[in-house]
């Protein structure tokens, strides 16, 4: 196979951080190469060098056998290198076609033949079976369509070396499969495809070879057919690891939260939660599964007081030591609920948007939820600093100091700060959503371990997750949400992926079946069924 790109001795430093150290690597035509590594191992930096965003401190780049200099994204395009970034770079109010030709010189001077552009876009879409229309506006697109558009954009520009930076992080399993099919098509066309990821099963299913980076250094390249999840993890982490999540048996279960007939109306006037009822116990991990956008976020927000439920909803909290004096959470302010010991740590798509203040250091972020304590007009900074030092040490957060802006930390470290702060507050109920979103394996296991520690301490842990395998391995019970309703609560030790998968899509299927009957309301009946499954 022909070499598309050869990198020799690439080094890039940012201040004191050495992001890439003497990396040499080959990308071939007609194959899919996975670039694997933990957070902060330098994968994205290396690819940004190829796409002209960064310039290496030293090292050589050969494209098609010739040494080249890539000083700008334009140079990269001229060489046929196209990168699809993790964060989309699209203009919302433009159509697909307009986004595609943005920044390109016109074919003929002074004239823009939009029709020719659209035809060419359509041709590309047909070739790979993409479902976007050239005149569709970006703001009307789904996340997966936006990503498709990014791919069409680089193909339109004639790229034959495609780099995808964590493309599956925002996709559902079905969309991921579709993307992989497209990647295989491109490979068949003789393109070189590089996928940056840290999801091992994806690496194994889609790629031909895997190159592994660790802490900015090149570790090696293996053929995918010779690799296993375990062997790749060991190369990535640099030591022997076990990929088993421990699940201690729940002890001394105490009822902490009882949700009854919870109904929440969404901003568009459509119910987002319908008659949700469940209980959460101290000493266990309750998992919440569901296709994204099925009410997981609203459920946690309702418990945390950030969303106002409709009349008739009841969320009862049983405080530790005072179980006989339950408190009604509906109608309380987020602050009051937090002070009772019900904590929420939500990891949003962009990690920083909620929960952390990007320009502040760890110490100042620690006091985000406790700064108002005490009657003094002034903030107390000593205690948060101590907490920050403790979190830094216990969770091994990599940061020069606790006053270093969290914006500059890598994604994994940001999440450790986020989860660590909630744990440090010693809550009675700890709700986490997407705690391992985008995290590498090592850090993910650390977080599972932390959650288990909380469970052993008697905390009621509610874990909203995306990865069914993890939910089944980690949680004692799993509540399944579908279209805002509870379709079942199953025992984590007996649950199967298929079984949960069926519950996740139950209502959609029933809706299909009942469509001609008009308003059928399966909500109440389903939640009782869920309750029964629990008994």
């Amino acid at each position, binding site marked *: 196979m022909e070499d598309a790109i050869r990198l020799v001795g690439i080094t890039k430093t*940012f*201040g*004191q951080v050495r992001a890439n150290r003497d990396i040499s690597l080959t990308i071939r035509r007609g194959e899919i190469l996975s670039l694997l590594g933990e957070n902060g191992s330098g994968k994205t930096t290396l690819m940004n060098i190829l796409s002209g965003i960064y*310039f290496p401190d030293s090292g050589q780049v*050969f*494209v*098609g*056998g*010739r*040494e*080249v*200099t890539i*000083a700008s994204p334009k*140079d990269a395009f*001229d*060489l*046929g290198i196209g990168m699809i970034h993790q964060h989309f770079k699209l203009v919302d109010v433009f159509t697909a076609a307009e986004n595609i030709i943005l920044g390109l010189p016109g074919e003929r001077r002074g004239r823009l033949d939009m029709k020719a552009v659209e035809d060419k876009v359509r041709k590309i879409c047909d070739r790979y079976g993409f479902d976007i229309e050239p005149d569709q506006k970006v703001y009307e697109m789904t996340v997966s369509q936006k990503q498709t558009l990014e791919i069409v954009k680089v193909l339109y520009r*004639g790229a034959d070396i495609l780099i995808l930076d964590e493309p599956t992080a925002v996709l559902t399993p079905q969309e991921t499969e579709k993307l992989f099919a497209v990647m295989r098509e491109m490979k068949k066309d003789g393109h070189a495809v590089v996928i940056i990821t840290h999801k091992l099963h994806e690496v194994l299913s889609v790629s031909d070879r895997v190159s592994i980076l660790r802490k900015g250094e090149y570790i090696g390249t293996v053929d995918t057919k010779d690799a296993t999840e375990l062997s790749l993890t060991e190369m990535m982490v640099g030591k022997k690891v076990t990929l088993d999540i421990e699940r201690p048996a729940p002890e001394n279960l105490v009822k902490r939260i009882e949700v009854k007939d919870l109904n929440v109306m969404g901003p568009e006037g459509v119910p987002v939660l319908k008659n949700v009822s469940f209980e959460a116990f101290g000493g266990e991990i309750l998992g919440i599964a569901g296709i994204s956008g099925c009410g997981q976020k609203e459920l946690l927000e309702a418990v945390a007081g*950030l969303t106002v439920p409709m009349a008739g909803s009841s969320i009862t909290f049983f405080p530790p030591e005072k179980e006989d004096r339950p408190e009604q959470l509906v109608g309380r*302010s*987020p*602050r009051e609920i*937090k002070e009772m010991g019900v904590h*929420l740590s*939500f990891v*949003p798509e962009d990690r*920083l*948007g*909620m*929960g*952390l*203040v*990007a*320009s*502040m250091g760890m110490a*100042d972020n620690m*006091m*985000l*939820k406790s*700064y*108002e304590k005490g009657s*003094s*007009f*002034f*903030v107390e*900074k000593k205690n948060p600093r101590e907490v920050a030092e403790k979190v830094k040490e216990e969770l091994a957060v990599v940061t020069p100091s606790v006053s270093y802006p969290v914006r500059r930390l890598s994604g994994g470290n940001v999440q450790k700060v986020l989860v660590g702060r909630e744990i440090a507050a010693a809550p009675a109920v700890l709700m986490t959503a997407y705690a391992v979103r985008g995290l590498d394996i090592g850090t993910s296991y650390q977080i599972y371990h932390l959650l288990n520690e909380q469970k052993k301490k008697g905390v009621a842990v509610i874990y909203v997750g995306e990865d069914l395998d993890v939910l089944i391995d980690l949680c004692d019970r799993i509540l399944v949400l579908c279209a805002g309703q509870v379709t079942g609560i199953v025992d984590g030790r007996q649950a199967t992926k298929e079984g949960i998968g069926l519950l996740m899509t139950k209502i959609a299927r029933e809706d299909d079946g009942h469509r001609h009957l008009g308003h059928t309301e399966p909500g109440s009946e389903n939640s009782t069924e869920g309750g029964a499954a629990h008994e």
Partner: protein
Amino acid sequence: MNKAVPKNENREPLVRIARRDSVSPGKKIGIRAASIVLALILDALFIVVVTGLNPLAVYAEIFKATFGTGLRFMWMLRDMAALLCIGVALAPAFKMRFWNIGAEGQVLMGGFATAMCMMFLGQKLPTPVLFLVMVIASLAAGALWSFFPAFFKANWNTNETLFTLMMNYVAIQIVAYATNILRGQASSLGTINMGSKIGWFPKLFGYDFTLNILIVAVLTAAMYVYLKYTKHGYEIAVVGESEKTARYAGIDVKKVTIRTLLLSGAICGLCGFIIVAGNKHTISTNTAGGDGFTAIIVAWLAKFNTFYMALISFLLIFLEKGAGQIASTYGLNEYISDIISGIILFCILGSEFFLNYRMIWRHREEKGGAAE
């Protein structure tokens, strides 16, 4: 591979720009000093070529405009205090990312309230009570002017930039209308209480403007502490950074927005009080004199740190005084003197770039074509 390859395919760019992680204090001083030297050299060239004057003599005049006599120095401090005071007032709003560009109007309303108190209550109230009323009136007037945009922003997310800007014109029209009514067609009220000096700031330590300067100095220090060490300051920082995060932390964003803007407007109003009672002793549509807009630059350049604001206001006023001085001494066209002071300002501000970024020059030309 039939791709068009750029012609200069094997050349590192001539210069690359990279962000600096941190700068040692020594280097900081070095860069700043170099910028001043550069400014003086560029200016010298300009002065010699365009005016034919001796640059050193021109520099001496600029310097003398502020430091020539004690009185001139006090004048400089007085003007600096007014500008700095507005900058301080804007700091909390800007830190919260609320673009209050209505300082001009808020100052004007504060000054207007003060002037009205001096005119109509001057004879009726004992001096201490009069001053108290003037302060309260000016605070309230300024706060009222910022309350409307804040209230609308907090409740309906209206655009605060346009809203505060428009409020300036309302304030100007109100003052114009009032002066018209009170003084016929005159555009200014003339000096209020000229003979009795009722409601004027007293002389302190032998100078007229000592009180102006003291009040602003205290405000500057207080605002620094407020933003950095209080719970309110922390809330402002969080809301400014991300409203979502603030909401998740249980911060009442509406309340913080309105409270912060009331404070911002109130201090602007107080600045109007200082200008009217402590300096101009009259009110006109020109009372704020554009300082409400210049202060936006002051607040931005200082990145909302009130002590840097003091330095920047000093620099701006120093240059303004210098430009006026050389224009009158040498009979220069005003534009020329403005260019001279502008060059200095440009170089000093331009040095910020070199504090944040470093240039990396091409260093391996000899490697050309060494494709293995």
